[in-house]
């Protein structure tokens, strides 16, 4: 039985909760979102459609982030340790994108596809610091975007999943700021 089918089978809900609790997935954004998508279907089409639309916008941004990290990784400007970090962060964005796409499908929506081509300000990326600053800018924007999305989901479990992703993006942003020699956590709140 796949995880998806396990999550979606209403007859396994008790076992599902036990599985999640025992496997350390209690706070997993993936588990939360997939289950939330299923629950949203039961709430009605309009709520699900609205949530799917919000998730699709987030998916578009995540796919762009994956492409942006690829540009950075292939720039030849990153030293090995920074390159390794960028690849890890890119992997996180891929995981976010996969989760969002699956949840959109669960909600009955059609996930957006990666664009054939993305525009990035590559002419301004001349040094490792330029690449890090560009990535930091995207991550900060992502934090704000998820923060703005958290309150607008009809399904509050999707808000929780979005908050889980927000936390990851905020960690990326802090690490990138630290790598740039900036205060990694410049304030007590994000906006």
């Amino acid at each position, binding site marked *: 039985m796949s995880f998806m089918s396990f999550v979606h089978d209403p007859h396994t809900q008790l076992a599902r909760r036990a599985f999640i609790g025992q496997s350390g997935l209690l706070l997993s954004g993936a588990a939360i979102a997939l289950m939330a998508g299923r629950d949203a279907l039961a709430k009605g089409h309009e709520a699900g459609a609205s949530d799917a639309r919000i998730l699709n916008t987030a998916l578009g*941004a995540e796919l762009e982030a994956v492409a942006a990290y690829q540009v950075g990784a292939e720039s030849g400007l990153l030293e090995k340790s920074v390159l390794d970090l960028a690849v890890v962060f890119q992997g996180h964005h891929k995981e976010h994108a996969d989760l969002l796409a699956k949840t959109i499908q669960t909600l009955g929506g059609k996930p957006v596809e990666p664009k054939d081509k993305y525009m990035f300000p590559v002419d301004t990326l001349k040094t490792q610091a330029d690449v890090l600053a560009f990535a930091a800018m995207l991550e900060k924007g992502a934090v704000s975007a998820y923060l703005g999305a958290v309150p607008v989901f009809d399904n509050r479990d999707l808000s929780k999943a979005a908050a889980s992703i927000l936390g990851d993006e905020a960690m990326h942003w802090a690490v990138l700021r630290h790598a740039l020699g900036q205060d990694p956590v410049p304030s007590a709140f994000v906006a």
Partner: protein
Amino acid sequence: MEGGCALVWLSATPPALADGDVLRGEGIYTRCLACHALNYNRTGPKHCGLFGRPAGSVPDFVYSEAMKHSDIVWNEESLNQFLTAPLTAVPGTSMGYAGIPDAQERADLIVYLKKANDSAVCTKK
């Protein structure tokens, strides 16, 4: 949906627009940078050419049906209203963002967008 959208737009009371600060607005604009850029389309449409532009009209950008049929022309007042609560102003918009409830922050952002639209980033051919 389209009629409902226009109804929501026209029936809402426009919030007052405060005096904005460009520098603060530039900082607030960083919140938009997951999806928007000034001079090229991303997940959201570019902001160069925003003022006076009918909503949903940037070529080569795929808008929601709701935005395409919103009958909005972007100016200080319409931006102020939309940014307050995008999903309320245009139900069905793809901009799944709660909005900027603080009037001063909206004013700062709008005055920055106006300044940026007059900058070389937006005016160079």
